[in-house]
C-alpha cells in the first residue's frame, strides 16, 4: 500500500510541476465550454435584416416595427430599389431582406391580401432557415392580429408549440452535456496515454520494471491522480455552465457525479490501454486524438443524431463509450430522471471499464520485449 501511495505521490508531482499539463487539464475544458456555449450557438440573435419598402404606409411600418422589436432581428439598412439587394448581401451583415410590394396597405384593405417577399442569404443554410422561419412566424402573428380586428376572430386554429425540458430551445442545453462527455474522454485518454509512454521514452520504465511494483499498482497509480483531477474538472464545468449559462442540474447531482466518476474511470482505462500498446508519446497522442476525438464527436450523438445515421455507423456507435454517457448525462441534467432510467447505460459503461482495465493488466509487459 505504501508503495502504491508513493507512486501516486510521484504522479501528482509530475502533474503539478508541468504547467502545460495543468493547462490542458483545466484551461482547455473551460475554454471549450465557453466556445461551444457562446460561439457555436444555433440560436438567432440580432440577425441583420434590411427592408425594401415600396409602399411606405402605416401597415408596413407596423410590421417592420414588429419584426425588429422581436429581439431576433436588427435593422441594417433601408433599401430603395431591387438593385441594392445583392450589394447588401455581399456586405455580409444582412442575413435577410424583407420586401413589401407597392400599395401594400391599400391592397390588404381592398383585396384582403398583400404580398411580402422574404429573401435570405442561402450561403449559410442554417441561419437562412432559422431567420425565414422566425420572420414567417412573426408575419403569421401579425396576420392574426389584424384579422382579429377585422373579422373578430372567426374559428382560426392557433397552434401553440411548447418545448419540454428546454422551453427556450437554448443550444447550451445541448452543448454542455456534449462538451463534458467529449472533454472527459479526450483529456483523460490523452493525459494517461502519455504518462506511461513517457516512462518508456525516458527510460525510467526500465527501472520501474526492475522493482517489486506490480503491473496493477503501476496502472492504478497512473490513473488515480488523473481520476481525482478530472473529477474536480467535472465540478468546475458544471459550476461554469451554471454561472455563465444558468444551466442547473435538474436531477440528482450526486447521481450525476457518481456517473461521471464511472465515465472518468472508463476514459482513463482507455488511455492506459492506448499507452500500453503504443511505443512512443507521439504515437499515443496520435491514437488518442485522431482515434478518439473524431469518433467521439461524430458518432456519439453529440452533434449528429444517431437515428439518422446509416446502419453501419449506428452499429459502430454502439462501441463508443461517449454515446452512453451522453444519454445518461442528458437524462440527469436536463430531464431530471433518476437512476432507474439510465441503469442500462450505466451497466454498459461499467462492463466496458472492467474489460479495458482487464486487457491493460494482461497486456502490460513485465519485461522489455
Amino acid at each position, binding site marked *: 500500500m505504501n*508503495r502504491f501511495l508513493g507512486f501516486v505521490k*510521484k504522479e501528482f508531482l509530475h502533474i503539478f510541476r508541468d504547467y502545460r499539463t495543468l493547462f490542458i487539464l483545466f484551461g482547455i475544458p473551460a475554454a471549450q465550454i465557453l466556445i461551444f456555449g457562446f460561439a457555436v450557438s444555433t440560436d438567432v440573435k440580432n440577425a441583420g435584416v434590411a427592408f425594401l419598402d415600396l409602399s411606405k404606409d402605416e401597415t408596413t411600418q407596423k410590421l417592420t416595427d414588429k419584426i425588429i422589436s422581436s429581439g431576433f432581428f436588427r435593422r441594417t439598412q433601408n433599401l430603395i430599389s431591387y438593385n441594392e439587394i445583392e450589394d447588401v448581401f455581399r456586405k455580409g451583415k444582412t442575413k435577410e431582406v424583407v420586401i413589401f410590394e407597392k400599395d401594400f396597405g391599400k391592397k390588404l384593405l381592398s383585396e384582403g391580401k398583400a404580398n411580402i417577399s422574404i429573401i435570405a442569404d442561402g450561403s449559410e443554410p442554417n441561419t437562412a432557415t432559422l431567420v425565414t422561419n422566425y420572420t414567417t412566424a412573426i408575419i403569421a402573428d401579425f396576420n392574426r392580429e389584424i384579422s382579429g380586428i377585422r373579422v373578430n376572430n372567426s374559428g382560426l386554429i392557433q397552434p401553440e408549440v411548447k418545448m419540454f425540458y428546454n422551453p427556450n430551445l437554448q443550444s447550451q442545453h445541448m452543448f454542455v452535456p456534449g462538451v463534458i462527455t467529449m472533454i472527459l474522454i479526450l483529456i483523460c485518454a490523452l493525459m494517461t496515454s502519455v504518462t506511461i509512454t513517457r516512462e518508456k521514452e525516458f*527510460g525510467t520504465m526500465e527501472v520501474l520494471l526492475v522493482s*517489486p511494483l506490480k503491473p496493477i499498482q503501476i496502472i492504478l497509480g497512473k490513473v488515480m491522480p488523473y481520476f481525482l483531477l478530472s473529477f474536480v474538472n467535472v465540478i468546475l464545468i458544471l459550476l461554469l455552465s451554471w454561472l455563465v449559462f444558468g444551466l442547473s442540474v435538474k436531477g440528482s447531482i450526486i447521481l450525476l457525479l457518481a456517473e461521471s466518476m464511472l465515465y472518468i474511470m472508463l476514459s482513463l482505462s482507455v488511455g492506459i490501454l492506448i499507452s500500453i500498446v503504443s511505443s512512443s508519446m507521439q504515437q499515443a497522442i496520435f491514437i488518442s486524438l485522431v482515434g478518439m476525438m473524431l469518433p467521439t464527436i461524430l458518432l456519439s450523438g453529440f452533434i449528429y443524431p444517431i437515428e439518422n445515421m446509416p446502419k453501419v455507423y449506428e452499429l459502430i456507435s454502439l462501441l463508443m463509450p461517449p454515446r452512453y454517457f451522453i444519454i445518461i448525462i442528458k437524462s440527469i441534467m436536463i430531464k431530471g430522471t433518476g437512476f432507474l432510467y439510465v441503469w442500462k447505460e450505466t451497466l454498459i459503461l461499467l462492463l466496458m471499464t472492467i474489460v479495458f482495465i482487464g486487457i491493460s493488466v494482461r497486456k502490460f509487459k513485465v519485461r*522489455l520485449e
Partner: protein
Amino acid sequence: MQKVIESTAISKKFRETQALKNISFSVNESEIFGFIGPDGAGKTTLFRIITTLLLPDEGEMKILGLDCITGYKELRKNIGYMPGRFSLYPDLSVEENLNFYATVFGTTVKENYDLISDIYSHIEPFRKRLAGKLSGGMKQKLALSCALIHKPKLLVLDEPTTGVDAVSRSEFWTMLAKLRQHNITILVSTPYMDEAMRCDRVALIQNGNILSIDTPQKIREGFSRKLFMVKANEKYKLITALRSYPETLTAYPFGDSVHVTLAGNQVNESLFDYLRQAGLKNVSAVETVAGIEDRFLELMEKEEKV
C-alpha cells in the same frame, strides 16, 4: 564461496543480429566484476537478461540461486539496477527521486542511509534541485544512490561512467570499492579499458563473445609477445610507416605513442633506419608492459583470424 551469478551458454538474438553467443561466466559474492568491451559488444543486452528485463533465447542463468526466468519476481526485490541512460525523473528533485525509489522498494531513506551516505553526501546540498538540472557527475551519484537505496544483494551498473568527467569517474570507483564492505556484489560494464584495473575480475566482451575472463593483472600478463612503445615527432606518419614495415605484426596508437609488436620480438637498427627514411625525427622505442587494452586488441585480432 557461493556464486551470485552462474550463466551457462546464454544466447540472445534480435531478428538478424546475434547479440550474445554462448555466454558462460560466474560471479562470486562481494566481488566487483567488470564487463569490458566496445559499444555494441552486447553488454547492455547481457545486463538486461541479468536484471530480468529480457529473456535469453538459449542457456541458463541463475542469479542469487534463482532462475532468471521463473524467479523474476523475487529477484526484482534484490537487484539494484542503474541503466546506461540517465533514467531518473528530471522533473522531480534529488530528494523526491530518492524518496520515490525508497518507497517503491518498500523501505525508507533513513533505514539505509548509512549505505548511501558516502555517495549521497556529495549531492545532499542540492537535494532541492531538480534532477534534470544536475551535472553529469551528480546525476550519476544520484542514480547510484537510487539503485542502492533498498540495499540490494546484487548491484548492476550499465556503463555508469560514460559521459562523466575523469575526476568523478575516479571518485565513483572509489565509492564502488567501499560498497564491498556491505556484502554487495557489483556487476559493472564500461568501454574504458583503464577502469578495468579497478575490478576484481573482468570479462572482455566483443561481438557477443567473451574473449577472456580473469583478474585484470592476469589478463595483462596474458599478452603473448613483447610490446614496444615507439615515439616520434609525427604520430600519424609514424603509424603508417610502422604498419608498412615488414617486421611489424601490430601497431596501435596509444596516447602520444604507438604500441608495436614485432615478428622478431626485438627492436633493431633496421626499424630505426626504416622510420628515418620515412622522414621521421626523434624516433625512440622502448619495451613496455602490456595493458588491458593491448591484450584486448590482441584477443580481438585472434578472434577475427578464426
